[in-house]
């Protein structure tokens, strides 16, 4: 026990003294501050970033399949404060899963033959058994056949002056009963625009009608025909890019721009038509509808817009936040591994000397004269660019300088008489390296750690920029690579999409600079001569 009382860990004591001196360096503290911000961002990424960095989707329950998060190449949504006309993402329908009966109250129901068609709320039906719309059609055998329909309308306000880039309509449906070619069910969607004043430069060739003092433009969309029951539930997306999106496809191109030319009041309708030619038989058809939603994709999204991936555009802000993880992880791990390798080899070569020294140093020379970037590219390509392989390759190519440094310091340390004093009491090689040489090079290790991080960060970014990135993680280099690959810089001009490249560029350099500043401060502590020059 008594021994433990006096035993002090030299490493901890050294660290404390180090911190005391470090605190005095303004540059070091500035570097540490920047680094802390980066580390906090990296650790808190899931809380800061609103979306997945690789494959983000529109949040919500869409059993027909995930919808993209946003339209490609969106501008930041705060552009609206700069006076730009932007449109943002919008979910048109509230309570679209019909989890409560209130959701139905927002819909306006119009039935052509109320004796045959009725609508009710089914609280236990639906895709999640949480409620859905139930439409019943029934005709007695003695009644005359004919066509009946029901129209569900949902009126909403589109607030943006700019038109949306896409709309996606989601619907889940289940049809049972006596559906047959002679008793078919038709489901169609439409949009209506209420116009206070006719728009200039706007041609419209479809049906219009007057309602109150407003002119209403009608945009009948696609109709789905059912000649047999549909069970179990089926789900579908109707996208504005569909070729047959309009009932009369030759009307217009760019449906979004025609339907939503500007802000105003709009109506979305779902028509269910029962075309009953069934003759003298009793007909009973039930149509269940659930998850009715219209997504309007704006041209502005998030804090930094989106990238150009056509299938699943990414939120650049989330990419930026998650990118810090890769850079810090790769930077620190590579520095740690390469410094450990360098330290081991340097101590061994320096202390053992002779053939071992010669062999290790010639090997280090060999690696040093190899052109680094081409070698990195080839190795990363052969090994497939997973994050671990990139770490391995960068570590393997990053230890040589430090090992030479440590070797030379060891050469001088091993001649110091405290090493001889240890030999005189019978200490072995390994003991001397561990207890006498190593503690005296620890400050150099700190310095090397802080100075080899920026190199590793920039190497990782370069590899990613060249396309050698791990497809499962988002990094800053990859963001810049994707900007480059999108051709946006050429087709649209760099300045229009600055928010795609400038933030990752600043992030890479500020992280690298933070380590360099810390390195400066450590260097000042280690080499007091530098301090005087200031």
């Amino acid at each position: 026990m008594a021994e433990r009382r006096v035993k002090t860990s030299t490493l901890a004591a050294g660290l404390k003294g180090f911190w005391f001196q470090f605190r005095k360096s303004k540059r070091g503290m500035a570097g540490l501050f920047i680094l802390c911000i980066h580390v906090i961002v990296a650790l808190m990424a899931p809380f800061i970033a609103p979306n997945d960095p690789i494959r983000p989707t529109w949040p919500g329950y869409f059993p027909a399949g995930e919808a993209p998060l946003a339209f490609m190449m969106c501008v930041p949504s705060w552009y609206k404060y700069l006076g730009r006309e932007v449109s943002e993402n919008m979910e048109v329908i509230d309570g679209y899963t019909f989890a409560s009966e209130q959701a139905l109250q927002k819909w306006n129901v119009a039935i052509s033959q109320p004796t045959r068609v009725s609508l009710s709320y089914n609280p236990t039906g639906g895709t999640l058994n949480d409620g859905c719309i139930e439409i019943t059609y029934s005709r007695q055998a003695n009644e005359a056949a004919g066509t009946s329909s029901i129209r569900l309308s949902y009126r909403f306000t589109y607030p943006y002056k700019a038109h949306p880039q896409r709309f996606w309509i989601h619907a889940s449906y289940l049809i049972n009963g006596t559906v047959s070619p002679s008793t078919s069910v038709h489901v169609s969607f439409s949009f209506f625009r209420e116009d206070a004043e006719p728009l200039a430069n706007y041609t419209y060739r479809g049906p219009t009608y007057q309602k109150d003092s407003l002119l209403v433009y009608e945009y009948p969309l696609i109709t789905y025909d059912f000649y047999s029951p549909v069970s179990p539930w089926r789900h579908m997306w109707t996208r504005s890019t569909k070729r047959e999106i309009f009932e009369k496809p030759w009307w217009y191109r760019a449906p979004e721009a025609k339907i939503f030319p500007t802000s105003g009041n709009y109506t979305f309708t779902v028509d269910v038509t029962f075309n009953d030619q069934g003759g003298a038989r009793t007909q009973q058809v039930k149509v269940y509808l659930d998850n009715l939603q219209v997504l309007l994709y704006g041209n502005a999204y998030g804090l930094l817009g989106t990238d150009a991936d056509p299938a699943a555009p990414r939120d650049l802000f989330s990419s930026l936040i998650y990118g810090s993880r890769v850079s810090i992880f790769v930077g620190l791990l590579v520095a740690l591994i390469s410094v450990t390798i360098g330290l081991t080899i340097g101590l061994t070569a320096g202390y053992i000397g002779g053939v071992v020294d010669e062999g290790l140093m010639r090997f280090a020379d060999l690696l040093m004269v190899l052109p680094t970037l081409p070698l990195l590219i080839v190795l990363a390509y052969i090994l497939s660019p997973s994050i671990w392989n990139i770490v391995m390759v960068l570590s393997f190519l990053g230890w040589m300088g430090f090992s030479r440094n440590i070797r030379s310091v060891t050469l001088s340390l091993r001649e110091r008489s405290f090493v001889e004093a240890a030999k005189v009491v019978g200490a072995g090689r390994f003991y001397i390296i561990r207890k006498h040489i190593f503690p005296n090079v620890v400050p150099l290790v700190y310095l090397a750690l802080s100075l080899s991080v920026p190199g590793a960060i920039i190497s990782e970014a370069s590899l990613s920029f060249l396309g050698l990135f791990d497809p499962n993680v988002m990094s800053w280099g990859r963001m810049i690579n994707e900007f480059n690959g999108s051709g946006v810089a050429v087709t649209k001009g760099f300045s229009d999409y600055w928010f795609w490249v400038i933030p990752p560029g600043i992030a890479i350099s500020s992280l690298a600079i933070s380590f360099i500043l810390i390195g400066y401060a450590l260097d000042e502590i280690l080499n007091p001569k530098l301090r005087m020059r200031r």
Partner: protein
Amino acid sequence: MTETILKVEKLKKWFPITRGLLRSLFSRRELYVRAVDEIDFEIKEREIFGLVGESGSGKTTTGRMLVRLIEPTSGKILYRGKDIVSMSDEEFKPLRKKLQMIFQDPYESLNPKMTVFDILAEPLRVQNVAHGDEIYERVCKILEDVELTPPQEFLQRYPHELSGGQRQRVATGRALILNPEFIVADEPVSMLDVSIRAEVLNLMLQLSETHGIAFLYITHDLALARHLCDTIAVMYLGKIMELASADSLIKEPLHPYTKALLAAVPVPDPTSKRAEVTIKGEIPSPVNPPSGCRFHTRCPQFIGEICKKETPSLVEIGSHHYVACHLYR
């Protein structure tokens, strides 16, 4: 009679001079620094054996060979009759407890990253002779022995928190903690302030007496050696020139080199007479030492060709008084 603890026979250390690759390609001849060139002496139990000479004469090299820090080129070192040169490291490790060394520079010989406790505990740990509380007790005991009291105040200190004298006391304690029989003390006070030298030396003397330790005391200061040592050997360019008991060496020095060294020592009594012998020039290079007697280039009593041609051997003149000079043949 007391027993011989250490006997050195024809001990030799030639350091090869490493040259550049090109030079060694063109010239086959190997060059050596003849730091120690066939010396013989023996040290008895409890004896303080002084090794005196100018700097560069091979004293430190001799001391380092005795504790096996470097391997001799040839020759024998017999510790109680056993040759330690031919032993393997494993065989020698337990003997290290008996043969210790105090280094010249206390600012260099203590690891700046270790506390006093760790420095003093290291020999015990490496030699695996004590554990846990026993280490603590022995360290405190040795700190008291070297008069660093109270020990608790020093245990946690780092070398840079100690004065030079305190450091050399720690170094002394470190050499003593394994209870050695023999210590090489390589100019242990030459780096200390003159004012504290006596204190440290007295401490060492006293400890050697109480612990019964034999010393090889290396110094360039003949006056100091005279007060401390029982026997003194005078070295010049890797050779022993004269070896005698301290009294007889100082009272009747035989070798011209010894006489010259004594002449350089300031004498407290100005009326006392002493042969005024001076030597001129610098010590020659040990790479190419003078032929014959190494001292002949600077010898005030040079007697001709024989000094240049023949190397004088150490012969006994009078009781236990050895000298290597052609004057006494």
